[in-house]
């Protein structure tokens, strides 16, 4: 899993707190010996609103891609009312380039369970569903085993740690659908339906699972909660980038010597992640492009990476976003047209079909791109491709439409010449666009 940086002396110093290198940490006894479930005890001695306040002060922002402030999200949940309230923990982890949550299921499942319990206490929730993608059968069983141990140690269920607080945690297995990582689609999937996203508003905090107030948080987000309670909001807020602080699980894939998931503070320069943490590019080749935060984030040119950091603000300023921190590295020999065609095919396959611009548009994008890939496109197809992408963006119920449009738009903006070179009617003397 997490290899140490290949040149540790030159890399940002960090001692893992989400994925510490403790042997057998997945076992409940080992976890408890290291102080595990101490944060839960601490939280249960606090008032629920104090827990929410602490999470707010920590500036924790969601790790599922949208970077929404977690404490603020929790505060949207109604305090009173007769309706049941629910927590959904999103472990659908289907964004290409993302493979971080599975590390938590495998190496530190009790941290996730403890965070889930603290979140439930803070929001007055008595049932939480952890939704995990169906392909993760092995990791579902790992988490199930940890959950059974937590139940038999009376850490979940009735009267937790004699506090009088009762809450249940259930694992819900998906069945192969990228869209179920979208929060409203995830709720429909738990309700036993097709994973169609819902129109918002109403937002889940008012009308969520079975029409009841619901909060949806990413697995990694929830895993950060015990750390905040244990070490305090002030400590947490001081880690990494002030506006987007905390430890971050960065998944590096593609053309690097040591791909993998690395835990580091937010704000580490992308070039340091590539060259120091991940061992650099094979054959000392140059970097043509990177996708910084999973396949739906905008592509960046390799030569534009100087000074760009792995946090929400820096990547936004660079014209992309942190997403799920799934960094995909492409060396100088990469055929970017093949890459974007494959990405477009993915969104075409995964579009749920509910909104016309996405259902039809993702197919058009892919078909147009196959023309470029085959060298059969015309110059007019370059503008057509952008036009189709622009007509998907912002015109759909959920963000999948945007996620399909952004990679194509950014690839066209950053590497227009690559597209033009694949056309049949590009004049020989045409200047190559930048």
């Amino acid at each position, binding site marked *: 899993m997490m290899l140490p940086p290949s040149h540790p002396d030159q890399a940002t110093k960090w001692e893992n707190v989400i994925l510490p290198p403790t042997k057998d940490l997945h076992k409940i006894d080992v976890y408890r010996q290291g102080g595990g479930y101490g944060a839960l005890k601490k939280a249960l001695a606090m008032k629920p609103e104090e827990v929410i306040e602490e999470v707010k002060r920590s500036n924790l922002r969601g790790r599922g891609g949208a970077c929404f402030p977690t404490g603020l999200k929790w505060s949207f949940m109604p305090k009173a009312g007769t309706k*049941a309230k629910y927590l959904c923990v999103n472990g659908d*982890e*289907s*964004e*290409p*380039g*993302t*493979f971080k*949550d*599975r590390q938590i299921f495998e190496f530190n499942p009790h941290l996730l369970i403890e965070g889930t319990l603290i979140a439930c206490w803070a929001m007055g929730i008595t049932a939480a569903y952890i939704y995990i*993608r*169906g*392909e*993760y*059968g*092995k990791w579902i069983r790992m988490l199930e085993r940890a959950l059974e141990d937590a139940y038999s140690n009376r850490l979940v269920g009735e009267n937790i740690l004699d506090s009088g607080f009762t809450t*249940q945690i*259930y694992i*819900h*297995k*998906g*069945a*192969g*659908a*990228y869209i179920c990582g979208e929060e409203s689609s995830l709720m429909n*999937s*738990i*309700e*036993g*339906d*097709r*994973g169609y996203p819902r129109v918002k508003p109403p937002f889940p905090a008012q009308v969520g699972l*079975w029409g009841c107030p619901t909060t949806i948080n990413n697995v990694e987000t929830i895993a950060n909660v015990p750390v905040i309670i244990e070490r305090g909001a002030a400590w947490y807020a001081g880690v990494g980038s002030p506006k987007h602080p905390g430890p971050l699980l960065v*998944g*590096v*894939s*593609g*053309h690097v010597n040591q*791909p*993998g*998931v690395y835990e580091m503070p937010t704000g580490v320069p992308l070039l340091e992640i590539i060259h120091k943490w991940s061992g650099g590019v094979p054959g000392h080749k140059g970097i043509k492009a990177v*996708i910084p935060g999973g*396949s739906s984030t905008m592509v960046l040119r390799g030569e534009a990476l100087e000074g760009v950091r792995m946090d929400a603000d820096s990547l936004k300023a660079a014209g992309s976003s942190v997403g799920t921190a*799934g960094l*995909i590295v*492409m060396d100088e020999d*990469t055929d970017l047209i*093949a*890459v974007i065609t*494959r*990405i477009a095919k*993915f969104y075409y*396959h*995964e579009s*749920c079909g509910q909104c016309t611009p996405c259902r039809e548009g993702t197919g058009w994008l892919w078909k147009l791109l196959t023309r470029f890939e085959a060298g059969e496109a015309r110059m007019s197809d370059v503008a057509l491709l952008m036009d189709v992408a622009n007509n998907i963006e912002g015109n759909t119920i959920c963000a999948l439409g945007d996620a399909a449009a952004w990679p194509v738009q950014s690839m066209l903006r950053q590497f227009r010449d690559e597209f033009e070179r694949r056309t049949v009617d590009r004049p020989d003397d045409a200047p190559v666009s930048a």
Partner: protein
Amino acid sequence: MLNENNLKRVEELKRRYPTTQALTLPVLWMVQEQEGYVSEASMQEVAELLNVTFAHVLGVVTFYTMFHTKPVGRHHIEVCTNVSCMLRGSEKIMSHLEHRLGVKCGETTPDKKVTLNETECLGACGYAPMLAIGEAYHEHLTPDKVDRLLEGLS
């Protein structure tokens, strides 16, 4: 239809959800584990068991890619061809498998032993290229490693 053990599991699961419709995915998983795929007759029975319409069950089965409506080979090989695996040579892995198995992607060997498919990202991007045989992930693949995997299939 569901065996006794699974029917018991269904009763236990009912306590986890406020509606029986919510059991659609878990029950379909049980059917597929038991039968290898979800037939139309099974869908009808699931509908009756959960007091939902056949149309609802059919809608769910056809929405999620992991539910099979037709039998697949004894071993279902799925090769990830998404971006991170593609950058690490998944194409070579796929063509090697096609060559070795004598079938194209999407087909089943005549002896019904192996079904070969491509799949979307399985969350193993740092260990690419990869494939899954059923639930088991096989990562850091090379053609040699693929050969050994195939030899190990009964």
